[in-house]
C-alpha cells in the first residue's frame, strides 16, 4: 500500500510509474476511512480536492515533470488545523472560528504546492495549540495509534497520529513549546522544530508569535530533512524569517557522526523522568557513542525557570494574538445589544477552558503594575536560557535529551491538573525560548504497555543539518522507526 511508504520510497515508485499519485492518495483515503473513525486524527478532508490534486500530479508526471525539480510531486501530506490552506476550513481546534475558511495559502502551503505535494486534510489539535495531549480540541479527542485509551501528545496530536497511522506520507504541525516534538515522541515518528525564523510563519495562526514555528512530522529523518528543505527559507511576508539560504538537508545524511560532540545536560536526567524513558535514552546515548560520537556532560543552569518564563511570555503574546476572535468580522458570533456584550458572549462561548485560562494569565502579566515583575523578568530569563544554550554549543555540536518525561498517558489522566500537563513540555520548552532547533525521533518503547519513546536532539541556531545528520545515523543503526502499531 503506497500510504505505508516513506516519501523517498513513494517518489521513487512515482518516478518509475510503478504507482500513480492517484493510487497513493486513494490508499491514504482508504486507510483513513478504515482507521480514523477510532483514531480521530482528521477534523475534515476535502476528498474531491485531494484526488484532483493527485490527478494533476499524475498529469504533470506524464508531461515530464520530475522529482529533482519538484521533490514532493504526487506526495500526499496533511496539515494541522492551525495552518491556512486556501478554501479549506481553518478552525485551530476551536469553536470560535465557526465556519471560517481561509481565503489564502500560508507560505509553507505555497511552497509545498510548488514542490508538487498533495496538500490535504485538517488535522486535530489542542485548541489554538494550547495543550500537550490534543484533549483541548473543541471537536474530538485523538487516540494514540499504539493504545486507543491514551493521548497522542499535543498540541500537534492529530499530525503525529496521522503519520504513525499511515494516513498520509507526512504531516505538518506547529511547535511553540514542544507541540511537534512531544507528540512525535509519544506516537513514534520524527518531529522537527526548526530554528525560529527558518520557516515562514505567514499563514500560521499565531499562538505565541516569538516562539511559534512550523515543522514536519515524518516517518524517517530523511523525509523530515527533505520537507524542511521545501518549506524553509526567507519570506518577505514574515519579518522574523531569517534571510539565509536553505541548504540541501538530505545531502549529508551519510551516517557519519565520528568526532561529533554531544552534550548531555545534567539538569535533564532527574526526578520525574520515567525509568523506561530514562533507560531508553541512556541506551540511545550509548548507541551514539558506538557510532563514534563523543558524549560529555553539560550544564544548562537556568533550566528550572523555563516553564515559568514560557507560561508568561507565551500567554502574554497569546492574549493579544487571540483578541481578534471577537465575532465582529468572521467566525462565531453570539449576538448582543452592544459590542462589549457581543465580545463577552462570543468569546465566552467560543473559547475552551485552557484557552481562557491562558488569555487571562497573559492579560494579567501584561497589566499595568505587573509588567515589570512578570513579562519583563520573563524576557530576561529567556535571554539567560538562550545564553545557556549558546555557551553549551561552544563545547558541543548538539545536545541529547529525552523528548518527554513519560510515554503517552491515559486520556483524561491529567485533564484536571494543568500544571502536571505543563510539565510534559519540560524538556522541549527551552528550545523555543532559546530559538534553537530540535527534533525528536523514536528511540525505543516502554515494556508494558508498549508505547513509543522519543529522543530529542537540540542544535544551534540554523544547525538543522547537524541534528538531522546525527538523527539519521542513529535511526539507520536501529529499527525503532520500522515498528508500526497494530491498527
Amino acid at each position, binding site marked *: 500500500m503506497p500510504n505505508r511508504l516513506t516519501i523517498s520510497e513513494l517518489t521513487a515508485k512515482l518516478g518509475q510509474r510503478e504507482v500513480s499519485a492517484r493510487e497513493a492518495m486513494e490508499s491514504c483515503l482508504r486507510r483513513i476511512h478504515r482507521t480514523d473513525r477510532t483514531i480521530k486524527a482528521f477534523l475534515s478532508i476535502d476528498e474531491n480536492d485531494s484526488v484532483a490534486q493527485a490527478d494533476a500530479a499524475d498529469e504533470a508526471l506524464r508531461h515530464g515533470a520530475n522529482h529533482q525539480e519538484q521533490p514532493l510531486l504526487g506526495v500526499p501530506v496533511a496539515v494541522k488545523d492551525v495552518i*491556512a490552506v486556501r478554501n479549506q476550513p481553518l478552525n485551530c481546534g476551536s469553536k470560535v472560528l465557526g465556519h471560517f475558511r481561509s481565503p489564502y495559502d500560508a507560505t509553507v502551503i505555497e511552497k509545498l504546492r510548488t514542490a508538487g505535494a498533495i496538500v490535504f486534510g485538517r488535522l486535530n489539535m489542542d485548541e489554538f495549540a494550547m495543550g500537550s495531549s490534543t484533549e483541548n480540541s473543541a471537536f474530538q479527542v485523538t487516540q494514540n495509534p499504539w493504545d486507543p485509551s491514551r493521548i497522542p501528545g499535543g498540541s500537534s496530536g492529530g499530525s503525529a497520529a496521522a503519520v504513525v497511522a499511515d494516513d498520509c506520507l507526512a504531516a505538518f504541525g506547529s511547535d511553540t513549546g514542544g507541540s511537534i516534538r512531544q507528540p512525535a515522541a509519544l506516537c513514534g515518528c520524527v518531529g522537527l522544530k526548526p530554528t525560529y525564523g527558518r520557516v515562514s510563519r*505567514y499563514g*500560521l495562526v499565531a499562538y505565541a508569535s516569538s516562539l511559534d514555528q512550523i515543522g514536519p512530522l515524518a516517518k524517517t529523518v530523511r523525509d523530515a530533512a527533505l520537507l524542511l528543505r521545501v518549506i524553509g527559507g526567507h519570506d518577505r511576508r514574515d519579518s*522574523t524569517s531569517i534571510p539565509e539560504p536553505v541548504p540541501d538537508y538530505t545531502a549529508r545524511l551519510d551516517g557519519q557522526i565520528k568526532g561529533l560532540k554531544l552534550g548531555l545536560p545534567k539538569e535533564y536526567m532527574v526526578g520525574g523522568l520515567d525509568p523506561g524513558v530514562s533507560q531508553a535514552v541512556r541506551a540511545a546515548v550509548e548507541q551514539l557513542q558506538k557510532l563514534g560520537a563523543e558524549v560529555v556532560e553539560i550544564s544548562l543552569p537556568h533550566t528550572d525557570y523555563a516553564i515559568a518564563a514560557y507560561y508568561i511570555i507565551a500567554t502574554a503574546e497569546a*492574549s493579544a494574538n487571540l*483578541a*481578534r476572535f471577537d465575532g465582529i468580522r468572521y467566525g462565531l458570533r453570539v449576538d448582543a445589544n452592544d459590542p462589549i456584550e457581543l465580545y463577552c458572549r462570543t468569546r465566552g462561548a467560543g473559547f475552551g477552558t485552557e484557552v481562557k485560562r491562558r488569555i487571562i494569565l497573559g*492579560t494579567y502579566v501584561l497589566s499595568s503594575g505587573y509588567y515589570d515583575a512578570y513579562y519583563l523578568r520573563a524576557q530576561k530569563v529567556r535571554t539567560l536560557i538562550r545564553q545557556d544554550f549558546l555557551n553549551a554549543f561552544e563545547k558541543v555540536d548538539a545536545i541529547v535529551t529525552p523528548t518527554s518525561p513519560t510515554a503517552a498517558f491515559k486520556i483524561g489522566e491529567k485533564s484536571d491538573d494543568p500544571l502536571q500537563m505543563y510539565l510534559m513540555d519540560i524538556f522541549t520548552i527551552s528550545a523555543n525560548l532559546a530559538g534553537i532547533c530540535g527534533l525528536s525521533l523514536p528511540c525505543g518503547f516502554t515494556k508494558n504497555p508498549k508505547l513509543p519513546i522519543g529522543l530529542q536532539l537540540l542544535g544551534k541556531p540554523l544547525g538543522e543539518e547537524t541534528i538531522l545528520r546525527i538523527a539519521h545515523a542513529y535511526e539507520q543503526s536501529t529499527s525503532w522507526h520500522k515498528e508500526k502499531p497494530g491498527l
Partner: protein
Amino acid sequence: MDFETVIGLETHVQLKTKSKMWCGCANEFGAPPNTHVCPVCLGLPGVLPVANEEALRLTALTGLLLNGTISPQAKFDRKNYFYPDMPKNYQITQYDRPSSVGGYVDFEFAGGITRVRLTRSHLEEDVGKNFHFERHSGVDFNRAGVPLLEIVSEPDLKSADMAYEYLNALKEILIHGGISDCDMEKGMVRCDVNVSVRPKGVQELGAKIEIKNMNSFSGVRRALEYEIPRQIEVLRNGGKLTQETRRWDDAASVTESMRTKEMAHDYRYFPEPDLMPFVPSKDWLEEVRRRVVELPLARKQRFMHDYQLPASDAETFKNEIRLGDYFEATAKQAKHPKAVANWIINNLRAKMGETLTSLDELKFNPASILELVELVESGKISTKIAQDVFGEMFASGERPGAMVDRKGLAQVSDTSAIEKFCDEAIAGNPKVADDYRAGKAAALNFLKGQVMKLSKGKANPSLVGEILERKLGRNSSNGKSVHR
C-alpha cells in the same frame, strides 16, 4: 483670581504613502467600503505585518523637519484594546521608543515668533471606521492599517488661538515636506487636546482633561474656547476638577464627560513580536536627509530678507511653493526683485488663474519677465504699454524686447519730438493753456492727454509733464506739480 491655561496637543497625521503600513493595499481615501482590504489589514487568522519602508522614511523625515532626534531604531509595540473598528483588537504603535524624540515648531503668533516644543513623534496604524444605521452598524476597513504619525506637543500652548496657529503651522510643515496632504475633510489630520487651568503663579499643573472628537482645527479652537472658561468657572465656584476624557459635541458646541480616570484603559503595551526593530543604515538616513525641505516660516523670512519683499508677498511665495520657486529663479538676477514679485503675483498669477495655465505650460521663459521689468524701469515703455506687452507675451511667448521693437511700442523720450507734440497741443487748445496759466492745475492733465494722443501713447509721460510746464511758464518745483 487670575487663571492660566496649559494645553498640549496630540496630532494624528496620515502619511502620504502609496500603500498601507503593513500590506500592499492602496492608501486611498474615498473608495467604496471594504474595497482596499486584504487578509493582513482585516486581521485574518495567520497574517503578519511587514513595515512599509516609505512610511518609516516619512517618519524619520518628519523628525528632521521638526528638529527632533531620530531614534537609532524603529521598534514597534502592541497597544491592546477592543473596538469594532480595530481588526486585531490591538494597534501596532511605538510605545517606549518613538521614531523621533523632542524637537519644536516655530510659528508666527501675536506679532512675533512663538516656539512650541514637541515631546515625540511616533508611527502607528490607523483603524477602520464605524457607521451606524437604523438597525445595525457597519465597519469600513479601507482606512485600517493606513500609516499614521502621532505628533505629541509639550504643554507649551496657552490659549485656543495659539493652539489653532500651532496646528496650522504644523500642517504647513507637513504639506511642504511631502509628509501628508493634511486634508481635514478626508480625515487625514485629527487632533486630541489635553487642557488644564491653574491659578496664575501656581507651579503645579491642574487636573488634565483630554478632549476628543474635534474634526477640524477650528473645532479644536472652539472646543478650547468652551472648555477653558468651563474649567475656570468650576474652580471659581470652589469646585474641583478631576482627570477625565471629554468628548466635543460640535453641533451643540459643548464638551461632555466620556470617561473618568478610574475608567481609563490599561493598554498593556508590549513589544510587537511580529516585527524586528528596523535599524536604519547611514545611507538610508542620508537619503532621508536629502529630502529635507526649507520650513515655511524660514522660507517666508528668507524671502523678506533676501529680496526685500513685504510680508504679504513673502507669505504668498511661502504658501505657493512653485510660484515662489519661480520667483526666486527669476529674481536672482533682478535689480529690483520687488518689481519682479509684483509682476508675478499681480499679473502672472492672475493670468494663470484666468486661463487655467500651470507654470509648466508657460510659453515664455523667466528671462522675459526680467526683460519686461527692465523695459519699464529704463523708461523704454510705459507701465500701461507693459501690461499689453505682458498679455501678448503670455499668449504667444514672444520676447518683450522684440515685441516692443517690432510693434514700435517704445516710449518717445526724444525731447525735440515731445516739444513738437506739446507745441501742437498748446496751439490747438489755447483756452485750456490760459486756464492753466491762470492757476487751474487740472488743466495740465487735459493737455498731457492731448500730447499722449498725438504721440499714440508712446511719449514718456514724465517728460511730457515737464515740457508742458516749462512751456506754460511753470516748473515742477513749485509744489503744485501734478506729475506722479
